[in-house]
């Protein structure tokens, strides 16, 4: 299997002088193409930092980070924007939908600036929202909003789908539906999905689990008996 992510001694510092904090220290790992990976750790461990680096939303302080053929460490700002535009899709805990755009328009917003995108209506159908496409975010439930945000991310047909606590703001059942959607997407399309979470139960459905604590990777394991979503609980 090809590795889509190749991280070698990735470090990230914030602030300067006495306010300097090391959010991520010498993180090295691979992520296989088409895998469903969970980055697990408690609050403040550096998960989101890692996700931001993978998504080209922030720059690493030192180390090497390759995604596909892109070397993120040496990219110019505008190239980094292009990388976000074409290569990655994001799903956030609080959805971050544009409040003044309908569900369909939110998807179009992402599709408009990328290549090889999927049809927005088709994608909304895929997440089960074909009847809600002309609704505004405020008219949708939390789970529906998260599905719009997933549709927005996957419609771009990205190399990497990055999800930051995607179930964090959702109730148990809705959370599971959303996870199922992400898992199915990965399996059916052979797409790489990376989820950042503090919810240890989710590790059981992953192909690959990276544990992180105090900015360091403390475990990097592959899951041989991956469970179905229906089988886990938290």
């Amino acid at each position: 299997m090809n590795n889509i992510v190749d991280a070698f001694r990735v470090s990230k510092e914030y602030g300067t002088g006495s306010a300097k904090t090391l959010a991520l220290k010498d993180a090295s790992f691979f992520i296989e193409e088409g895998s469903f990976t969970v980055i697990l750790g408690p609050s403040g461990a550096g998960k989101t930092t890692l996700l931001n680096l993978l998504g080209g939303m922030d720059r690493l302080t030192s180390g090497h980070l390759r995604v596909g053929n892109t070397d993120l460490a040496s990219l110019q700002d505008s190239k980094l924007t292009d990388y976000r535009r074409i290569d990655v899709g994001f799903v956030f805990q609080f959805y971050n939908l544009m409040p003044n755009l309908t569900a369909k328009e939110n998807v179009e917003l992402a599709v408009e600036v990328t290549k090889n995108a999927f049809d927005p209506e088709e994608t909304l159908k895929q997440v089960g929202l074909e009847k809600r496409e002309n609704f505004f975010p405020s008219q949708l439930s939390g789970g529906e909003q998260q599905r719009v945000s997933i549709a927005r991310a996957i419609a771009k047909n990205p190399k990497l789908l990055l999800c930051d606590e995607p179930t964090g703001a959702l109730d148990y059942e809705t959370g599971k539906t959303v996870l199922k959607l992400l898992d199915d997407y990965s399996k059916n399309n052979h797409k790489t999905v990376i989820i950042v979470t503090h919810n240890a139960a989710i590790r059981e459905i992953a192909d690959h689990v990276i544990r992180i604590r105090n900015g360091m990777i403390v475990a990097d394991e592959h899951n041989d008996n991956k469970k179905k979503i229906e089988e886990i609980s938290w």
Partner: protein
Amino acid sequence: MKAYFKTVIKTFTGHFSRFIALVLIILIGISFVTGVGGITPKVENSINEYLTLQNVPDIILKSKKDTGFTSDERQEIDDLSFIKETEILTCFDTKIDDEESRIYSYPFDSDINNLKLLEGEFPDSYDEIAVEQESSKILKRNIGETVTYSGIEFKITGIVSNPLLFSKQGEQSMNNEDESLSLILYLNKDKSILPLPNTDIYVVLDKKKSSNRYSKEYQDYVSSKIKVIQEKENFKEENVASLSLEENQSFAISENVGNKVNVIAALFPAFFITVVALVVLTTMTRLIDEDRKLIACYRSLGYSKHKIRLKYVLFALISSIIGIAGGLLLGSYVIPSVIYPAFSNVFFLPSVTSSMNFFIGVISSIAMFVSTILVTVIVISKSLTETPATLLLPKAPKAGKVILLEKAGFIWKRLKFKYKSAIRNIFRYKGRLWMIVLSVMGSTALVMAGFGIYDSSSSVLEIDGIKVDLTSTLQPISLLVIIFAMLLSILVLYNLTNMNIGEREREIATLKVLGYHDLEVDAYIFREILVMSLFGIILGIPLGTGLLVFIFNYLEFGGIENVHWYSYIYILSFWHYCSLPSSIFSLFLKSKRSI
């Protein structure tokens, strides 16, 4: 208390650019109002002080008889209880070498209507004369030159300035209203050998020392005394013309110009203050919205509403005090030094000018101060009615809505997606929309009025004293209006753009995450501001036209047809230039924030 004090300081440092914008907006409003509103009183006070100093007569009695006044008749006036002093002299118009001329036989040692000696000496012999200083109509004469009248060759010994002739537009001839005097000469009454009748009695009334000749009170007082004089047999209207200062051409011109400038001075501040109050309203609303979490924090810690309110009232209080103080200072020292010379083009103004009149400035400052504090108290009190629990939640972003235009499917479908979003956003924040449209509208009207007055005043060619005077006074004032309206607009736009960006940080972040380039993100924000300003400009042009028509009617000069077509282009491009610096500055602030 110490921690509370620290948070009060933080309000200023944390919202520093807003604080500065607020101070500057208030400063510009107040300085314009103080400067333009105070200029007419300043000029009138200066003239009045000068007239008092030179002890000009309150009434001039002109005999209609060829023989003039007798000394008995003068005594009759002197005996009236309300008379302070009188003087008797000769003044008549005639032609000398085909030039319209006025000849005075003048008592130089008199206390009344002191002539100021500018050059040379007062005449001291029957064949010596002084002449009035040069102005637009009165020709220049030099000491040593001679003037021949009635067979006598008079030598010019001095150049003088008559306080009753302080307008540079000269004086009409009493014999022919269409002709201006080109020579005014003064013989020494005591030395004259010409048999001249006493044509004039100068009358100084007993009056309060402080009485202002431009006040209605003074003018009513003088006309009541004229009535008393006219009741006397020898001073009936058919024998004697009784003239007050209002019949003096210089005074009439100065009063007229002053009145017209006052209209402008009263009209523009109203516009300025309205725009400024609107800006203060949104700025404070936005500031308190931003501090929502902080307010919730105070509330949950048990701080009293009063103490929280105080923090924001202090912010408004200090910004407005600094703005008002700066505005009063700038308005009373800098602006007059720009406009006062305009009046000097028209009048011989005393070089030592009377102190500034603060009446309009102070009134506007109080209005500004009260409205700023009131707006703040209302906005913060509204926020404080929410429970701490709801305050802790972020204010939900205003929901998107289907707007009317979408019902017109055939247009809506054709619109590009980003325009759809912009249009929907414009109508999403209706309050913001009105605020931008109204302030841009007000500023556009101001700028247009400035250009309109400027264009009209430069196209007035009639050789009519009052109109020419008015024109040269109005030009610098109209330039001032343009500059101040421009400054105000830059600040208004800066403030609004900044607010728009601040309010939509999450949306901007989302666009950035989705891989939108900086330019595309900027376009997303500025497209809305641009469209809203355009609404404002489109509505501002008719408002400005209305304002101009009103001004032109009142000033009795100029017309909307005098406004050059290219001024409209200026108004539009002016907005372009205004939005440029404010956009750049907002962009600069935004670029400091990363996703």
